[in-house]
């Protein structure tokens, strides 16, 4: 979307409309205020000195009998133009100062940056007051003082933004082409940092307005007979007990004008795309929209459901009636079983939008079950809902769900505390990115030991001893010393081991591993896989291993669940998968993408075509077999 179109879109929002309205009103006052009311605001009325509210003077009069409201309206011009002038000077000077280190470079550049950093430490008002010592007490001096005071902070902003652009390739290209540095800065750097600078200029103008009022209020700005809002405020302050409106009306004017600039900055920020759009919900909505666009049939459930497993009948013991040749165990002996699991997100209009569409499976004791599927197929959501970690606005429902003898479905009395303990003791989780799944502000050891304190009834020393033991179990060298270190002192592989160690604090009957090796390099990946396998054989812990790497899954797991667009499309033993025996077209397509030693090297690697609908293909297959 182009900037102008985004701007139009932003203006059409209620906030944008309000910003336009406020800016127009302020502009009108600045341009026409003194012309319309200038003379009547200046008219002194000795018969009505310092009066309260009256029909002629809705907010009373000041010490010379002049109308407060009219004076406030007229004062808008001086207050706003002074603030804007200060902003213009300050922002320009700030941009120049911020860009100078890049242009000059070397020692002088570093000195300028150091100067900026020192200047930023001192608040603007303090700087402005100091400068007004030099410049004297007048409106112009106050404007200049405020402009000078905003140079350090604006210079720093410019410098930070410009420095982030400075390292990019097109700058290097300009260097290589011999473009003079100042030209590079003006042509290539400045346009790239323009948007945030504009947004911040609007906010800065609001601050300048308030600072200017503050200086005038102190008597260091506008001097009699001129008046701005700050001046009126200090005059009104002295008559606070006679006519509060004399101080409150210009005060409200300052707040409204300040808010106008804040609004303007906000709307510009949205229009220029400097705001943040990275929320989880936004991502989900985007994902849903993308999927909706790619898969128009997804909305018509009956077509797709026949291929999936959501149409299972209550009591069906195997995950999929059609693809039930996997070695899945019975629910009684299963460590974990779930029937007709659905995860839905509220759509743009609040209607539920299914992300996981009725998945049923069992995990037997000692099994290693892989879940494979493309991104967004619902693998991770399935895992998260097993662990009870789905939060609103996502919604989980299931006909039945059991974990190691406990019913997981919600009962009338809500979420029993007992279940927390059960989960804490029996369930371990390993996540995709070991770099981010440990808390950076806490010692690794404390995070490993936490479960012991929370659910196993251990005291601090016991939990610590057991945690060190577990860290040793996962082969972390010098576990006792490592216990007191922070995650940033660990390597990626060690962090993932620490995560596994934390899961082993209790006696877990199930480890849910969500792509635990994706973020690791191949050697470390092999170590983590070996560790999981060792835990599985030595302790008998079941493992659910989510991955999009079908090669890893077939080598590690005993059984594989294949997910596709929220459906469980295949439940097959790893043996069958290795032998290439798969029923669902998607599984077959997935298998075909795995290169082997005999894959012809001239041919391009096989891939899953974009826009292919394997659900429709499968249902076509069913119809062919059915008659």
């Amino acid at each position: 979307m182009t900037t102008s179109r985004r701007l139009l879109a932003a203006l059409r929002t209620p906030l944008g409309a309000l910003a336009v309205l406020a800016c127009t009103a302020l502009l009108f006052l600045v341009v026409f205020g003194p012309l319309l009311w200038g003379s009547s605001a200046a008219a002194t009325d000795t018969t009505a000195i310092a009066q309260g509210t009256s029909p002629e003077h809705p907010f009373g009069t000041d010490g010379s009998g002049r109308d407060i409201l009219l004076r406030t309206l007229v004062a808008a011009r001086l207050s706003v133009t002074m603030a804007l002038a200060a902003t213009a000077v300050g922002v320009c000077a700030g941009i120049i100062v911020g860009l100078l280190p890049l242009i000059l470079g070397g020692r002088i550049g570093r000195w300028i940056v150091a100067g900026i950093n020192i200047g930023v430490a001192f608040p603007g008002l303090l700087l402005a007051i100091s400068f007004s010592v030099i410049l004297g007490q007048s409106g112009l001096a106050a404007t200049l003082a405020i402009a000078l005071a905003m140079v350090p902070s604006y210079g720093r902003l410019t410098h930070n933004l410009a420095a982030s652009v400075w390292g990019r390739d097109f700058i290097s290209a300009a260097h290589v082409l011999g473009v003079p540095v100042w030209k590079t800065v003006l042509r290539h750097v400045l346009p790239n940092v323009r948007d945030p600078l504009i947004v911040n200029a609007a906010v800065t103008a609001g601050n300048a307005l308030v600072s200017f009022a503050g200086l005038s209020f102190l008597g260091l700005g506008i001097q009699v007979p001129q008046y701005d809002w700050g001046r009126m405020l200090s005059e009104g302050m002295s008559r606070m007990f006679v006519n509060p409106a004399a101080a409150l009306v210009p005060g409200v004017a300052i707040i409204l004008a300040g808010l106008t600039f804040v609004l303007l900055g906000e709307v510009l920020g949205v229009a220029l795309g400097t705001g943040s759009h990275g929320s989880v919900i936004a991502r989900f909505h985007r994902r849903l929209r993308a999927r909706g666009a790619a898969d128009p049939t997804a909305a018509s459930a009956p077509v797709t459901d026949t291929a999936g497993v959501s149409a299972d009948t209550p009591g069906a013991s195997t995950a999929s009636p059609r693809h039930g040749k996997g070695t899945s165990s019975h629910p009684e002996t299963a460590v974990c079983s779930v029937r007709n699991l659905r995860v839905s997100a509220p759509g743009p209009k609040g209607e539920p939008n299914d992300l996981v569409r009725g998945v049923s499976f069992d995990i037997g004791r000692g099994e290693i079950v892989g879940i494979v599927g493309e991104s967004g197929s619902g693998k991770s959501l399935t895992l998260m809902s097993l662990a009870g970690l789905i939060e609103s606005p996502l919604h989980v429902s299931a006909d039945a769900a059991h974990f190691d003898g406990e019913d997981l479905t919600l009962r009338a009395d809500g979420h029993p505390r007992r279940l927390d303990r059960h989960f804490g003791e029996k369930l371990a989780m390993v996540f995709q990115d070991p770099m981010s799944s440990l808390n950076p502000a806490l010692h690794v050891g404390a995070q490993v030991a936490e479960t012991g304190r929370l659910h196993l009834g251990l005291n601090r020393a016991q939990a610590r001893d057991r945690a060190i033991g577990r860290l040793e179990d996962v082969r972390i060298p010098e576990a006792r010393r490592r216990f007191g270190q922070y995650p940033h002192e660990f390597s990626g592989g060690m962090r993932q081991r620490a995560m596994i160690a934390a899961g082993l604090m209790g006696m877990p009957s199930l480890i849910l591993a969500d792509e635990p090796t994706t973020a690791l390099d191949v050697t470390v990946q092999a170590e983590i896989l070996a560790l999981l396998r060792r835990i599985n054989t030595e302790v008998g812990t079941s493992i659910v291993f989510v991955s999009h790497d079908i090669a890893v899954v077939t080598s590690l797991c005993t059984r594989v669940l294949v997910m596709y667009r929220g459906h469980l499309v295949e439940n097959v033993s790893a043996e069958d998968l290795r032998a290439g025996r798969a029923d669902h077209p998607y599984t077959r397509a997935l298998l075909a993408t795995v290169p082997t030693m005999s894959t012809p090297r001239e041919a391009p690697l096989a891939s899953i075509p974009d826009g292919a609908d394997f659900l429709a293909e499968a249902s076509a297959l069913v119809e062919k077999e059915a008659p």
Partner: protein
Amino acid sequence: MAGQSPTPIRSAPDPARPTRASSLVTHPMTTYLLRRFGYILISLFVLVTISFLLVQLIPGDPARASAGESAPPEAVEARRIELGLDKPLVIQYLVFWRGLLAGDLGDSISLRIPVIDVITGRAPATLELAFIAVAIALVSAVCLGLMFGALTRSGRRYGTEVGFTSVTAVVAVIPEFLAGIILVYLFAVSVELLPVAGRTGPASYVLPVIALAIGPCAALTRIVRAETLTVLRQDYIRTARSKRMSPVRLYARHVLPNLLTSTLTISGLLLGGMIAGTVLVESIFAWPGLGGVIVDSIQGKDYPLIQAIVIFYGLVVLLINLVVDVALILLDPRTTLDAS
């Protein structure tokens, strides 16, 4: 600090029990603290130099400006000697430093008493006001921001979020002097509930502190809430939730430390601004601090007093920055590694 070893205490003699001393010597925290301290010293030097130059930079003749336009030449010369402006600049500068270190900053021209007495007599009132307001703003912003962050996480309670953002946006725009005036109106003109002038008892602190703290507090609360939402999205919070703990433990132990670091980094400037804000608040509430003196001394062209007050306020701001830096190190072990 790319070359920094990730395990700074490797050289400890007993790996199981690293001694405090050995870890301190090689710890990046020490070098970081030294660097920060060096920075403060340079800032201090710049501060003193600028406050010295303030008088030199006044256009025209500062002695004439101070004595008044219509003063006879003898009075101007007397004022020149009083201000020390008759000596060469370098000598003046050195004398200024010597006086500063000896605590002798000359006499105030308008008040006819040593400047240092004015500072020591009035600074406590300003410092009290500033530190109480800073502490209250910080604590309440963290509590409120965390609470609203928790309430509105992942798009819940849209109404609450809209209410929160609009109320804090409006309050954050209100400058301290307007907040002061509104409070005077509410608590002195409408209902005579709280004293609005002077420093008499605990009740007299209420309005000035609120006036000073409310705007920065609203701005900080917004920051804290935004940071809370960011932290809540992190993977390690999912890890913590998978361990199943009480919400209190989750927020206090796993969210709060990660929140404080970023919040404090951003809030340094805001807190410095509050120190400057005392000037305005003191003039509204007739607070017997240095705020009232600074305006009088500027208008009265009492240059020795102006210089001393500028240095005083600058020092307090630097002190706040130092406290924030030290707090950051204590809170987040990574600060020392990222800081370069």
